[in-house]
């Protein structure tokens, strides 16, 4: 019986490894191309990292820099040129700023609302909760068009505000937090009231600390979703390159797909995708737990 088990394990791993190879294929491609020279890319040679021969890059000299500056190994060139051609650091900062702002405002709005819906009694509570449930059915991307029209009418297109505002209301966040708060014992809150705490303090000093695990899960969910969001920024940022979020930055690079600069393009993709991937690999248990927890609730 033991031998059978090992053979069985072997087959399982075989299937899983094939699956893993397919899954990792594009990642491999991106990294590999970002390290190679143009000729190698177009002729598909050089294995993973390419032969790395030092050469002079024509596009670079075309831009007016000396031959000397433009002579180096391909992998250095790709990344150097990517940063030169586009403000990648700026894109990353934009991404950070936008996702963090969105998350903070979401918490600011959702937490008190969830508290009120779970622990306070007031006229219209059921109605508002039904409203929340109804809004859960509306994906924000679906109403992108009318939102865009509204923003255009008040002149907020092409601003940070446009990137952030539609996401400030997270009904999912309200729902998640409410479910969580329902499990907090009423006595805890009554004790705080007896101690003289106003409702406002209760939300931030009592409820917030108990909700940290759920908040963490929600944070992961929100940050990942908005860092990777391409659709909404694409609609709402029409001219101002300074406001580009990471996906828009990648897109811009790809603009001239038939141009001959695949190396730097892939280099920019690697740079922009890496932060999230690295964060994920480091904290993957947390990530996966977070996504699962938000899912089950």
């Amino acid at each position, binding site marked *: 019986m033991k031998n059978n088990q090992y053979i069985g394990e072997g087959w*399982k*791993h075989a*299937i*899983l490894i094939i699956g*893993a190879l397919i*899954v*990792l294929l594009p*990642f491999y*491609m*991106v990294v590999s*191309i970002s390290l190679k020279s143009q000729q190698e890319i177009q002729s*598909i040679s050089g294995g993973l990292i390419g032969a790395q021969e030092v050469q002079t890059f024509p596009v670079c000299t075309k831009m007016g820099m000396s031959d000397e500056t433009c002579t180096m190994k391909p992998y250095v060139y790709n990344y150097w040129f990517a940063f030169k051609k586009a403000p990648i650091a700026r894109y990353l900062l934009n991404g950070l700023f936008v996702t963090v702002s969105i998350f903070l405002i979401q918490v600011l*709005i959702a937490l*008190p609302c969830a508290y*009120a819906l779970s*622990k*306070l*009694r*007031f006229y219209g509570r059921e109605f*508002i909760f039904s*409203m*929340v449930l109804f*809004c859960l059915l*509306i994906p*924000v991307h*679906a*109403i992108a*068009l*009318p939102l865009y029209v*509204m923003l255009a009418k008040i002149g907020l297109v092409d601003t940070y505000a446009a990137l952030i*505002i539609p996401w*400030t*209301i997270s*009904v999912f966040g309200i729902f998640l937090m409410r479910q969580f708060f329902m499990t907090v014992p009423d006595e805890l*809150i009554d004790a705080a009231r007896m101690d003289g705490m*106003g409702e*406002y303090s209760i*939300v931030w000093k009592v409820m917030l600390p108990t909700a940290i695990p759920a908040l963490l899960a929600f944070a992961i969910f929100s940050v*990942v979703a908005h*860092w*990777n969001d*391409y*659709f909404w920024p694409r*609609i709402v940022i029409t001219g101002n390159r300074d406001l580009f979020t990471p*996906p828009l930055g*990648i*897109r811009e690079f790809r603009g001239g797909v038939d141009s001959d600069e*695949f190396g730097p393009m*892939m280099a920019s*993709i690697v740079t*922009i*995708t890496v932060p999230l*991937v690295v964060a*994920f*690999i480091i904290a*993957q248990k947390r990530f*996966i737990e977070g*996504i*699962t927890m938000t*899912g089950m609730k």
Partner: protein
Amino acid sequence: MHYSKAHIWFVGPAVLLMFIILIFPILLAGGISFTNYNLGNPSFDWIGLENYEKMFSRKTYIKMIWATATYVLIVVPFSVVIGLCAAMLLNSLRFGADIYKTIFFLPVMATLLAMAIAWEFTLHPTMGIVNSFLANGCGGIREFLFGFHWLPWVNSNESWYHIACENNNDFPFWLKDRGYAIWTVCFIGVWQAFGFNMVLYLAGLTSIPRELYHAAEMDGAKSTWEQFKLVTWPMLGPTTLFVITITTIRSFQVFDTIEVLTKGGPSKSTYVMMYAIFEKGIQQNLTAIAAAITVVFIMFVILLTFFQRYVIEKRVHY
């Protein structure tokens, strides 16, 4: 429970935003859809149901519905089934499950746009590794395997692989060929989605009480398939419902892949609804018809979710 006036401040902002950002736009879209409004024009006319009539009669829009339906009907079943199989495989491994879990979840985390471009390169007709892999395998074991020569009814001189090899390595233009584009896009969709489903199924699997499997064994359920039918699948009911609901809604909203790789083409074979809204509403400034598509889209999503959540939900919880 406490009676307090504080709730107004707590709930107020949320309610206001819900109305302004979520509910009002739907009404706005509805209103615009009955006009011929274009953003930027000061005036517009009411044209009734004309936009909707266009939607259900013009070929472009029929293709749009077709493309969206194909995408959803391929991506949802495949990503759910593959997710489930992966979860079951991982659950029964003795070691290494965590590594695979991380790998399979990576596509969910990575920026889809970036990965779409990565796939574009991988599938590139001349520079892509897939086609070069196939080309190098002409006349060898790869041709045998992928050309289906091992199936009894396939003539090895007539298989697609062989013909392609003969014609100067004319392998498919995965994204540029009208016949292949939608399937390729679906493939990328499944690639991106199954990891998420897998993770949810893993959580569901660990919550099945082990004694049920013991009982099944004692009752005579010997094979994995029998135990799956008797214990695993029924107990995963709620998880399956959730997974299908989420995947369906996400598939309806596919945009990134289309916009960067195919732009709805070739010849509108990948012209999904979200892209249509984008093209018509934002790029071509035909706000009204885009609003009509938006309304239809929202109705689809709401109906679908409603159906899945409230109708099927009862049957699935024990």
